[in-house]
Structures are given as structure tokens and as C-alpha cells.
């Protein structure tokens, strides 16, 4: 047993007396004052000289940080990273952000209040306070109030503290020694804790599972799940053909998909010229269309060497040949729409702008393979 003193405890029965005693003893600076009471005693925190808590400022700071972070996050998500117009509102709509800012403020503030109180200010985890091993603890948890003078240095005078408590109305005094702990957290204790957590999870899980079987629970948000509407490919007795999906009205033309006004590529060449200006973005679009649809047969540079195996057997046109290079833009456009030889029509896959962009890109490939002197300067 250790002979060092942790604290001297004085027991009181009267809340007024313990406050008076604390007020008397505090100026003598015998040691750190602490009080253990079964219920809150008004004025005691001032009497033992407890400084005002720093928690409030911490909570305020974290609340403001929470609000700021939420605003930053929402701004970044909805106006920078993935700008998506929702019901015609501005991308940065602070009105829509306020509820989330409010929630995050509360989240940061309450978590700070709870965690900082427990771990930073109350210095938890703290296994087994020495006072818990005192004889007085039974009284303290029932109807006694204890004022304790804790040793803060080697020079602590337990006898003086004892006398001071007795002089100020303590009914009895107990000297609490520093407990002789070698291992505050034992392996057995740790294993027991883990076992208890596992057992609690099992009980809760099995209990919930059983309860769900006994009491049928409606699926949440059923009104969103079951909407009175037809999904794609769903049948419907309402329409004469029994299908939920409706065909387009006769004569409907999609944007960019006007039916051709020509019967052969030669007619197209005579009728049409490329309406698109050659800009960076159109060249890039042509590059993408060419890469997605043309390069597989005509080759990445348009030389007619397919990416597919030769076993395919087709003879794709070589855009770099003099014959094909000499054809006007409209001819390419016409072939894209009507197809030629083994090549199918791409009218359904590409709209007007895609086709003209591809034509631009083919011209770029041709120029690249037949560079003139001035292109190199």
C-alpha cells in the first residue's frame, strides 16, 4: 500500500456548510479543492474556485467553422465541381444551403460540446477515481457532501488539511491514499468489454430481426416507391396496342436528323457545302466522331488500313488517296448518310453537326499527310 496521500476528504450533511467551508479554506491554498455531491449545489463551483468553462468559446468556434465548411462544400459541389441547374435556380443559391449549414453548425457544436467536455476538459478516459475507493463514497452517492483537498505537490500537509476541514464544520475526515495501480487497463477487463459489446450487438440484432418478423413494418417512403406512372417497356391496357411506351407521331423529325434531300453522294456533293466554321471545338468534336465511328475501318489517320482484322475482308476507302481527297465536302456527307458499298448509313447515329464535324476532321487528316511547305513554318 502506498503511503502517499491523494486527498483529504471532509464530509458534510448541509449544502450551505460545505459552501461556507470551501469559501473559508480556498484562500489558504492547502491544495486543489474539489467537491463530490449527490446533487448540484448552487454556488459551490465558485466556492471551490472553479474557473469559468472554456467550453462555450470552443463550441462557438466550432459552430462557426461548421457553418463555413458547409457553405464552402455546398458552393464547391453545386457551383464548381458539378454545376447542375436545379429548378431554374442559380448555381450558388444560398437559400438552399442554409438548412445544411444550420445542421452542420449544430453537428459541429454538439459534437464539440460532448467530446471536448468528456476528453479535453474532463480528461477522460479515467479508470477508477481514487475517491471511488474511499470509505466515504457510499455516503457521497446517497446524502453526504464531500469537500476534498487534493495534494498538488510533495509538500502537501495532510494534517493541516484535516484540521482545516474539521475547523470548518466537517463531520468526519478521511485521508484517501494514492491507489497502488500497476495496470489501470487489464487484459481481462479489455476482453470482458469486447465480449460485452459483441453480446449487446447480438442481442440487439437478433431482437430486431425477431421483432421485424412479429410486427410487419411498412417500407418507408412507399409513396415515392410506388408512383402511378408507366415505366419504360411496361405494358398498359389503356392503349390499343397494349404498350406503355408511345411511338412518335407520324412525320416527327428529330433535331439534326432531317431526311436527306438527295439520292446519291454525287447529288449531295452538288447540293451541300460544310456550314460549320473550322474552330478548335468543332475540330475536337470531329476527332471524337471520327475516332468513335470511322477509325475502326478507315484507320486512325484515315489511310484505309482498318483497326479490325484484315480477315474482315472489306476494302475501306483511303482518305489520303488523290481520288478521294478531290471529292467535295458534300460527297463525304452524302456517304455518311446513305452508306457506300459495305459501309452502312450513319444517319441514325450522327446528327448533322456531328457529320459536318467529321468531314472537317477528315480534311485535317488529309492536310496533315500532305503538308505543304508553309504548314511547316
Amino acid at each position: 500500500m502506498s503511503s502517499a496521500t491523494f486527498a483529504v476528504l471532509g464530509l458534510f450533511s448541509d449544502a450551505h456548510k460545505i459552501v461556507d467551508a470551501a469559501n473559508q479554506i480556498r484562500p489558504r491554498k492547502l491544495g486543489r479543492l474539489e467537491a463530490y455531491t449527490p446533487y448540484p449545489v448552487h454556488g459551490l463551483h465558485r466556492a471551490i474556485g472553479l474557473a469559468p468553462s472554456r467550453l462555450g468559446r470552443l463550441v462557438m468556434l466550432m459552430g462557426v467553422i461548421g457553418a463555413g465548411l458547409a457553405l464552402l462544400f455546398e458552393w464547391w459541389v453545386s457551383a464548381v465541381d458539378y454545376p447542375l441547374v436545379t429548378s431554374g435556380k442559380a448555381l450558388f443559391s444560398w437559400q438552399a444551403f442554409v438548412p445544411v449549414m444550420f445542421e452542420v453548425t449544430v453537428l459541429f457544436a454538439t459534437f464539440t460540446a460532448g467530446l471536448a467536455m468528456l476528453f479535453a476538459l474532463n480528461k477522460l478516459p479515467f479508470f477508477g477515481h481514487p475517491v471511488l475507493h474511499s470509505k466515504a463514497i457510499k455516503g457521497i452517492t446517497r446524502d453526504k457532501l464531500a469537500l476534498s483537498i487534493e495534494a498538488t505537490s510533495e509538500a502537501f500537509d495532510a494534517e493541516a488539511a484535516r484540521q482545516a476541514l474539521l475547523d470548518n464544520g466537517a463531520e468526519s475526515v478521511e485521508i484517501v491514499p494514492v491507489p497502488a495501480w500497476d495496470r489501470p487497463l487489464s487484459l481481462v477487463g479489455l476482453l470482458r468489454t469486447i465480449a460485452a459489446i459483441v453480446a449487446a450487438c447480438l442481442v440487439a440484432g437478433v431482437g430486431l430481426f425477431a421483432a421485424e418478423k412479429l410486427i410487419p413494418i411498412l417500407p418507408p417512403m412507399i409513396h415515392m416507391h410506388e408512383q402511378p406512372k408507366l415505366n419504360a417497356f411496361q405494358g398498359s391496357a389503356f392503349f390499343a396496342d397494349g404498350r406503355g411506351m408511345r411511338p412518335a407521331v407520324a412525320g416527327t423529325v428529330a433535331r439534326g436528323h432531317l431526311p436527306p434531300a438527295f439520292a446519291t453522294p454525287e447529288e449531295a456533293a452538288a447540293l451541300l457545302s460544310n456550314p460549320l466554321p473550322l474552330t478548335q471545338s468543332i475540330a475536337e468534336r470531329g476527332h471524337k466522331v471520327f475516332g468513335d465511328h470511322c477509325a475502326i475501318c478507315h484507320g486512325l489517320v484515315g489511310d484505309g488500313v482498318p483497326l479490325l482484322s484484315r480477315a474482315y475482308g472489306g476494302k475501306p476507302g483511303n482518305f489520303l488517296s488523290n481520288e478521294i481527297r478531290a471529292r467535295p465536302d458534300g460527297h463525304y456527307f452524302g456517304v455518311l448518310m446513305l452508306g457506300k458499298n459495305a459501309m452502312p448509313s450513319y444517319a441514325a447515329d450522327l446528327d448533322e453537326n456531328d457529320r459536318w464535324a467529321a468531314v472537317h476532321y477528315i480534311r485535317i487528316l488529309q492536310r496533315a499527310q500532305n503538308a505543304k511547305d508553309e504548314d511547316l513554318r
Partner: protein
Amino acid sequence: MSATTPRSSLVRNLLVALTLIGAAGTAGAYFISSRERFWVNWLLWTLFLLTLGLGNLFLVALERMVGAHWSVPMRRVPERIASLIPLAIVLLLIGFFGVPVIFPWTYPAAAHNPILVAKTAWLNLPFFAIRLAVCAVVWMLFYRFYVRGSLRQDESKDPAFTLRARRLAPPFMVVFFFSVTVLAFDWISGLEPEWYSDMFGVYLFAGTFISGIAAMLLGVLSLVRRGRLPEVQTKHVYNLGSLALAFTVFFAYIGFAQYMLIWYANLPEEVIWFKHRTEGAWQPVAWLLPLLHFFIPFFLLIGSLGKKHPATLRLAALSILLGHFVDLYWLIFPVLGPQPLFGWPELAMASLFLGLGSLQIRRAMGRGADMPVGDPLLSRGLEWQL
């Protein structure tokens, strides 16, 4: 009781002079400026006084209902400020003459407006008058019950009144919420009868309650400073400050909830009301509202020191009261046009109504003891610890 010192009679004379000048200006405003502007002003200032009175009556009843001890030593102040209710009811009854001038649903053209035709079951003059009369009677009855009863208890020391007051508080709350909702729907949102917001009644209630707390706070602090409430300590005022803090948040919550729902849904008939009030020249006024009604009082009162310091509390209360005025101004005045009007008619009517209100409160401040000495809970209120 306040003895007639030279200073207090000087203040009284100044207030009387202010009221008289205001009365002359008001008469001038009636004949010179437009009738709409006159009656809109009348409505604004009547509602300002009425909501202060009702907010304080509500505070009295709230204390009765929850059985609070801490506010008992200060209860005379809200009871006295509630004396604005009879004054404001008289003013509101006079304001009834302005109904055909400022409420569009009374115009002949309303018969051709399908939206207003659909609302005639509610918006017609006889029913409007009945609602006004019922509200006025209810307010007067409860005002007399709580304030006169409390004054009589000073002499009789009868604890039965305390029990009766507590039993009657819950029904009062119900009636009060309905009456404030009627007040909000009839006298404020009725100015633009096509518009509606289900929570507008709660919005006016939130403004009424928080401005009531602010007025009570100012009253308590001024009596404490004059040494008339020697036993009211920092702890009592601190708790009142906490209540003010909580309900500035409540007001902001309700105000923003109403705004955000309407902003989100973006329905033309609803959103036009906010468009008139948040764009153009009204925008700065709209920004004043959260500033005065929430941000300034919130940050003044959030710390524990602020709630113990009379100057800080006074500043917060003044900010809330100014915010309440701006709130009513912002709710009512946009019917006059896209420019916020504030000229000599407004100043004249402000001095008349504020003068009348101040004189009424000053008179009430001399009535009865400064603390409810007959209330059996008073000693517990004085002993109460934070």
C-alpha cells in the same frame, strides 16, 4: 411609486409635447399626403403597439402556465406594458375606417378578380368586423383578468388567484394563437389578398413574442436602474436574456422557413410577395431584418457575460425592437410602391403613436407595487438560483 421629481415631470411634459406635435402632423398627413399612406402608417404603428402589448400579455400567461418562479419578481413590468392593449385596440377600431382605403378586397374591382371572389367567404366586411370584435373582446378580457387580478392580489394576498391564473393560461394560449393568426391574416397579409402563406400567423407570433421579451427587458432594466426593483438581481435578468436569445433564434427559424419554402416552390402567386420585398429599393430593408432581428441580438446574447451586462442586454433589446419595427414596415409598406417611403408623415405619426404608447406605459408604471407582493410565488422567485 415614482414621486413627481422635476426630472420625471420634465420627461412627461416632453412626451406630451411630442404627442401633440405628432397629433398635429398626423392631422396634416391626413389632409395633405395620400389617404393610403395615412392609413398604412396608422396600421403600422397600431400593430407595433398592439404586438408589444400582446407579447407582454403572452409572457405573463406563459409564466402562469409553466409555473415559473424566476420571472415572478419582474412580472409587474410585462403586466404594465400589456396596458398598451386597450390603447392599441382603440387605435385599431379607428383604423377600421381605413379598411376600404387600403385593403384591395374591399375595392369594387375585387368582384372581377376570380382569386378574390373565391376568398369572399373570409374576406368580407361583416365577417372582418366580427373577427376584429371577437379578438378585441378576448384580448381585453384576458388583459383585465391577468393584470387587474394581479393588482388586486397585492392587497388581498389571495393564493386562489394564482391557481385560477394558471388554470386559465392554457385556454388563453389557444385563443391567443388563433387571434394572432387572425390579426396577421386580416390586417397584414390581407393588404395583398392574392398572396397567402400558411405560416404567416406563426411568423407574426414569433415577432410579437420576441419584441414582447425585448420590451420587458428594457422595462426591467430601466426600473432596476432607478432602484425600483432592488431585489431583482443579475440572475433574473440573465434568464430573461436567455429567453430573448432562444426566441431570436425561433424568429429567425420561422422567418427563414417561410421565405425558403416560398423561394423553393417558386409559385408565381406566392413568390411575387417576396419579389416586391427583396428586390430593388426594398432589398436593403430586407437585409436589415435578419441583421437587427437575429445577428446582432444573437451574438450579443450568446455569451454568458452579455446576458449579465445591462448595457449589452439593452443594446440587444433595442436591436430587437428596431428589428420588429423594420419587420412590420417591411411587411406593410411595400403596398405603397417599390420605393420605401419614410418622410414627414411617417415621422409625425411615429411621434404621435410612440408618444401615446410611452405615456400609457409611464402611467401604468405608477400603478400598484413594483413587484407582485401578493403573489405566493414571489419569495421563491427571489430565492431562485441560476
